[in-house]
């Protein structure tokens, strides 16, 4: 418990936390407001422009906007979470702070797992805050686009939100675990972040040629696990193919999460700490 609380304290003061969260929120708000501000101007042109304007208005129309905002957060947030996880794990090696803890008799596996638990907690907090901001941005965007927000209080959608948020958190945490493990194996922040980003875009690229394989890969299953089947909206998730059923994808998310942490734990326990 001491380590978990300490981990949260460390992360809450860490610049990487604010930079990652700030980038996600900045992009989210910018895009939503831009969509809202330009939705009406797209309505006045030809058929194509009209369709784009209609799509933009639909994006900002509640209660569907709840799902679309969440999909965006989970899609782009997954990439950021992976980078964040890699930064945190890599710095333990780069800065040598893991070394100090091990020399104090701390269990390497316990240390790494509790560090990751802290990351998972921060992701949960970030996800909730980001979602609230996204909803506020969508309301403002809807106002700019002259779209009614009457669906804001749709009880059926609101009732499902906690479950959707929980699944979304689980998916994002899996992606964070992947970055965490890559950086642990690389024993470096930069190498971990670089390899994680390459993995993310590599998976997207590979989905063009190997869709049947890629649909089982971590980013694709994360997207599939939270997919409502109503389109991704603003999502910029790494997996273009999300063809697995959500329940099956959720199981694979769990397997990727546990598998990643298992690898990180075993590696941390066995590796010689030098430098």
């Amino acid at each position, binding site marked *: 418990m*001491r*380590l978990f*609380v*300490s981990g949260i*304290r*460390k992360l809450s*003061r*860490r*610049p990487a936390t604010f930079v990652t969260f700030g980038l996600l929120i900045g992009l989210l708000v910018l895009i939503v407001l831009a969509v809202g501000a330009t939705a009406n101007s797209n309505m006045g042109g030809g058929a194509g422009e009209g369709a784009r304007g209609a799509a933009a208005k639909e994006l900002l129309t509640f209660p569907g906007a709840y799902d679309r905002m969440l999909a965006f957060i989970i899609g782009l947030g997954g990439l950021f979470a992976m980078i964040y996880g890699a930064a945190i794990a890599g*710095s333990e090696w780069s*800065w*040598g*702070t893991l*070394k*100090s*803890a*091990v*020399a*104090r*008799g*701390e*269990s390497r596996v316990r*240390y790494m797992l509790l560090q990751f638990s802290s990351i998972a907690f921060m992701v949960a907090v970030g996800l909730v805050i980001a979602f609230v901001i996204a909803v506020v941005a969508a309301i403002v965007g809807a106002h700019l686009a002259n779209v009614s927000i009457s669906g804001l209080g749709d009880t059926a959608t609101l009732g499902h939100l906690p479950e959707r948020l929980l699944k979304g958190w689980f998916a994002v945490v899996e992606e964070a675990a992947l970055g965490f493990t890559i950086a642990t194996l690389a024993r470096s922040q930069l190498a971990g972040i670089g390899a994680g980003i390459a993995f993310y875009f590599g998976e997207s690229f590979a989905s063009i040629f190997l869709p049947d394989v890629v649909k089982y890969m971590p980013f694709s299953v994360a997207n599939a696990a939270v997919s409502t089947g109503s389109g991704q909206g603003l999502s910029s998730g790494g997996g273009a193919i999300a063809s697995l059923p959500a329940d099956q994808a959720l199981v694979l998310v769990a397997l990727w999460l546990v598998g990643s942490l298992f690898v990180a734990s075993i590696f941390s326990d066995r590796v*010689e*700490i*030098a*430098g």
Partner: protein
Amino acid sequence: MSGTDGLAVATRGLRKRYGSRLALNGLDLSVPEGVVYGFLGPNGAGKTTTMRVLTGLIHSDGGTVELLGKSFKRGDRHRLFDVGALVESPTFYPYLSGRANLRALAASGAPVPSKRIEELLDLVGLGDRANDKVQGYSLGMKQRLGIAEALLSDPKLLLLDEPANGLDPAGIVAMRDTLKALAAGGKTVFISSHLLAEIQVMADVVGIIAGGKLVREGPLKELLSMEGVVKVRVRPNLTEAAIKTLAPLAKAEPLAETDRDEGWLSVHLAADRAEDVNQTLAGAGIYASGLESGTDLEMLFLELTGAQASGGEGAFVGLGALNGEQNGGASAGKGTAA
């Protein structure tokens, strides 16, 4: 493990290999409890590898380790709850303050009372800067914080790798006094260092390693008195006569012996007997053109590790060698010149 009673650290036949390089080659260390132990050796001798093994960062390929009288193997991490360590350079979260770093580290390993952190910050002289981010600290301040980290759990055994690194003279004196006080209080302080003069004034016992093996270990005073040397230079044509003349003097001391060293004769006996050497030579009609004596640690260190130092990792080429001379390098002599 037999014969390790009263030892804070005992290694027997410790071996560690990195690829083709043998870093530790059967190291046998015996560190008594309640002393300041100076752990010396040239670069690449195996000091840091030993520190890493003792702190569980790496595991040996063979041999045994005992910490505070108990076996220390893979999985025995709880032994380290009574050990404080500063291995290589101190490590911190740069974006956190000194105080927050100590709190973060205190969350791992043995529990630490919060007031202990404040005590340590004052002890290492960082009380006023405790809220500043570590990334703004000087090297010496980081070193002070590293020493505070090592002391967090009020350890019975303190393992410090180059603790004086970056400290200003006042800081070195303060650190020395602190470590000596800790040893006087019954704690064992194990210091790996290149600062031989510092070890000489601080250590009670020293261990010197070279090539991954212990080459000498014992109480510092005893080693220095036994390993003193008087060097005398005579004309080349008088060398043989001088050896014959000094032989009885050497025999008079069980540990004394003579040898040749680039025109100098080294007589291994207590350094305060330089006058006897000079008198004996003069009595035989041989007059020394140079006379040096020394009992310092540097002389002992160079003598014991000289072969490794000249070819070891990080060895410098003597100025003479750079100038194309056959016998470059510095004299190890210190003390009085006749």
